[in-house]
C-alpha cells in the first residue's frame, strides 16, 4: 500500500474539485531568474492535497509546465533530458502519432499553441465569479511584481446551466464526469467499476504509479520519470486539449439518422456514446434511461462488456466502450489496466438549449485535461489506437464515433439482434463532431519539486 504525502501533491491531481468556474491561464515565462522568483512567490498560493477541515476554499490554484517552460526555469540539462521524449517533444510534434491531422492539424490551432509560446498552465478553480476574479487578480499581481511571467492567453470554462440549474452536462447534452479510475492510497471512497477488474469480478484501485510518479505502477515498476527522484516524486503529466464541439452538426445528424433508425434519436445518441444523455450506461439499460442507476454509486460505473461480445447492448464502437474497454478484449480486463487515464476539465461557451438556433462556428466545447504517469502508454495509446483506430475492437480503421478526427465521413455500426425493435443499423456519413483547437503536454510537479525549481536547487547528480 502506497503511503501518500498528500500535502506534497498538487490538489488538482488528487481531486476533481467540482467547482463551477475555472480559468486556465497560459503563461510565458521570463528567460531569466525572474521566472524562479515568480514561482517562489506563487508557491504559498498553490492548492495541495491538504485536508479541508474548514470546508472547501473559495478558489484553488495549480500550476504545470511545458518542457519549454522547464527550460526557462533553468533546470539543469541532465534533468531536462531525463524527461520522457513525448513530453520533451510536446503535443504539436506528436500530431502524427495522435492523429491530429487534417482539420485537427496544428496549422489550424489557436496561435498560442501553434507558436508554442505557452510555458505554463496556471489553473484557477472557483466557487463564484467574485472568488475567481479576486484570485486571478492576485496571480496577475505576482506576475507583475516579479516580472517572471506574463499571460499569453486564457480559457474560461464553467459548468453548463440548463434551465437555470448548474449541471455536469457537456454541450452534446450528456451528463459527464463518470468513471475516473481509483488509485491505491487515495482517500476517495471507491466505487465498483472505477479501478481494475479482479478475477473474482470485484474491482480494486489501480496502482498509484499509473497516475503519480515515484510509485510502483501496474507493471510493478516505477514510471519513467525525470531525475532527481525529488523532481519527479508526487508529480504527474497532464495533457491539455481544447476540444471544440460542433453542436449543430451533432443535433442535425441525430435528427436525420434518428428518423431512419428504429430506436429513434435518443437511443441513437445513447448507442453512439454508450450512455444515455442522463448518464445511464447503455450496457446496463439498453432500451431506456434509468435515473435510479445514475444516482446509485454502486451501479453507475459498475458494468462489464464480457457478456456482450456481439455489442447488441452497448455497440462495440461506442465511445465509452472504446475509451475504457474494461473486459471487452478478454483476459479479465488486464489489457485495459495500463491504459487508464484520469480526466479533468469543464465546458466552455454557453449552453444552447435543445431547439434553440445554434451554429458550429460558435465558441463552444470542453477544456479537456488528462492526467497520467506515462503519456505514451496511457493517453497517447488511447488516442491513437482506441479513438483514431479500431483494430483492437476488430473495427479496422474505423474511428471513435464522437471524437474521431474525420473530414470525409466515417461509419459506425450499431450491432443488432433479430428482435425487430433492436435491428442492426449502419450510421454512415459521420461528420466530425469534435475538433481540436490546440493544447500541449504539461508536467505537474509536486510541492518539493516546485520549491527546488523556484530556487534553482534541482540537482540531477
Amino acid at each position, binding site marked *: 500500500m502506497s503511503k501518500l504525502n*498528500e500535502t*506534497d501533491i498538487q490538489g488538482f491531481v488528487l481531486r476533481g474539485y467540482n467547482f463551477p468556474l475555472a480559468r486556465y491561464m497560459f503563461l510565458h515565462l521570463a528567460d531569466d531568474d525572474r521566472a524562479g522568483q515568480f514561482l517562489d512567490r506563487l508557491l504559498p498560493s498553490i492548492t*495541495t492535497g*491538504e485536508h479541508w477541515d474548514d470546508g472547501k476554499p473559495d478558489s484553488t490554484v495549480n500550476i504545470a509546465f511545458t518542457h519549454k517552460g522547464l527550460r526557462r526555469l533553468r533546470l539543469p540539462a541532465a534533468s531536462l533530458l531525463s524527461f520522457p521524449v513525448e513530453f520533451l517533444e510536446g503535443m504539436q510534434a506528436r500530431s502524427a502519432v495522435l492523429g491530429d491531422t487534417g482539420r485537427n492539424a496544428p496549422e489550424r490551432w489557436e496561435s498560442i499553441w501553434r507558436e508554442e509560446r505557452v510555458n505554463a498552465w496556471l489553473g484557477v478553480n472557483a466557487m463564484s465569479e467574485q472568488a475567481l476574479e479576486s484570485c486571478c487578480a492576485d496571480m496577475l499581481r505576482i506576475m507583475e511584481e516579479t516580472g517572471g511571467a506574463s499571460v499569453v492567453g486564457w480559457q474560461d470554462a464553467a459548468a453548463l446551466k440548463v434551465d437555470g440549474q448548474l449541471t455536469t452536462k457537456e454541450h452534446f447534452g450528456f451528463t459527464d464526469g463518470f468513471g475516473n479510475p481509483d488509485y491505491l492510497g487515495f482517500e476517495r471512497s471507491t466505487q465498483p467499476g472505477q479501478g481494475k477488474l479482479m478475477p473474482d469480478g470485484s474491482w480494486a484501485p489501480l496502482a498509484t504509479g499509473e497516475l503519480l510518479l515515484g510509485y*510502483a505502477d501496474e507493471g510493478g515498476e516505477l514510471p519513467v520519470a525525470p531525475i532527481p*527522484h525529488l523532481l519527479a*516524486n508526487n508529480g504527474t503529466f497532464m495533457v491539455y486539449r481544447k476540444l471544440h464541439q460542433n453542436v449543430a452538426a451533432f443535433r442535425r445528424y441525430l435528427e436525420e439518422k434518428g428518423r431512419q433508425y428504429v430506436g429513434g434519436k435518443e437511443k441513437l445518441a445513447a448507442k453512439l456514446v454508450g450512455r444515455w444523455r442522463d448518464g445511464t450506461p447503455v450496457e446496463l439499460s439498453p432500451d431506456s434511461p434509468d435515473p435510479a442507476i445514475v444516482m446509485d454509486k454502486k451501479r453507475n460505473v459498475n458494468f462489464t462488456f464480457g457478456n456482450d461480445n456481439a455489442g447488441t447492448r452497448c455497440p462495440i464502437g461506442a465511445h465509452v466502450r472504446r475509451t475504457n474497454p474494461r473486459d471487452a478484449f478478454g483476459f479479465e480486463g488486464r489489457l485495459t489496466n495500463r491504459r487508464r487515464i484520469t480526466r479533468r476539465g469543464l465546458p466552455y461557451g454557453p449552453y444552447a438549449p435543445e431547439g434553440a438556433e445554434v451554429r458550429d462556428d460558435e465558441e463552444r466545447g470542453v477544456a479537456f485535461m488528462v492526467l497520467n504517469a506515462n503519456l505514451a502508454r496511457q493517453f497517447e495509446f488511447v488516442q491513437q489506437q482506441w479513438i483514431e483506430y479500431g483494430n483492437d475492437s476488430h473495427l479496422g480503421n474505423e474511428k471513435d464515433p464522437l471524437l474521431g478526427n474525420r473530414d470525409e465521413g466515417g461509419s459506425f455500426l450499431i450491432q443488432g439482434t433479430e428482435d425487430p425493435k433492436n435491428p442492426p443499423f449502419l450510421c454512415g456519413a459521420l461528420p466530425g463532431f469534435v475538433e481540436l483547437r490546440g493544447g500541449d503536454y504539461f508536467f505537474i510537479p509536486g510541492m518539493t519539486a516546485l*520549491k527546488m525549481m523556484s530556487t534553482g536547487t534541482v540537482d540531477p547528480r
Partner: protein
Amino acid sequence: MPNESGSVYGLTILSPIIDDPHARISHDLQLRMHLGALPRGEDSPFAKVSSTHMARLTVMNDVVYVGMPACEEHLQSQYLVFESNFDGDLDTYLRRMATEIPDHVDSVWSHCIGYPGAGDVAAFESYMKKCQLTTTFYFADVNDKTVQQTLRALQTQAAVASFIERNQGKPAAELQNAFTKFLGKLRAAPDPRPGSGKDQSI
C-alpha cells in the same frame, strides 16, 4: 571507540519530522526550504560553535529502488539527519549549540516530533541524545588536530611556500635574516576565522 576518533567526536542525530496532513506546506518541505537558505562558510551558524570541523543537515526521505519489480519501502517518517564532527565532548557541544545559536537550532528542530526547544538546555540535551545514533565508523581527516590547529597549519603552509618563492637562492645570511622576520610575522598573525576555507595571507 564509537563516536570518537582521536580528539574528534562524530555525532549523528536522526530526528523524525512532523507529518501533519492539515499543514498547508508539509514540514519536510518547510525544513528543506529553511535549510536551503542557511548561509555557509564564515556566516554559517555552525561557525559560531567554533569547535565544529564540519556539520551537515539533510532531510532523509524514502530510499527509492528503481528496478523491476520496484521495491516500495517506506520509513516510519521522514527524518532530519544531523552530522557533525567537532572537538571535545558531546555535552559541551550540545550546550554550546543550545546557548550560542538557540534561535538557529529552534528554527531547524521545531519541525521535528517531540522537540522541546533550546531554551531548556537540559531537555534539549536529553532530546538530542535520545535521537543519537552510534557512529561506529567514520573518517576524520584532521590528524587529531583541533579546528584552530588545522586552520593555523593551512595558514603556515601557504605562508612558507610564499616565503620560499621570494627567498630561494639567496645567500645564507640574508636568508636567515629574512626567515627570522618571517617567523615573527607568522607568530603574530591573528588566528584564522572558523568557517574560512581559503588561504589567508599574512
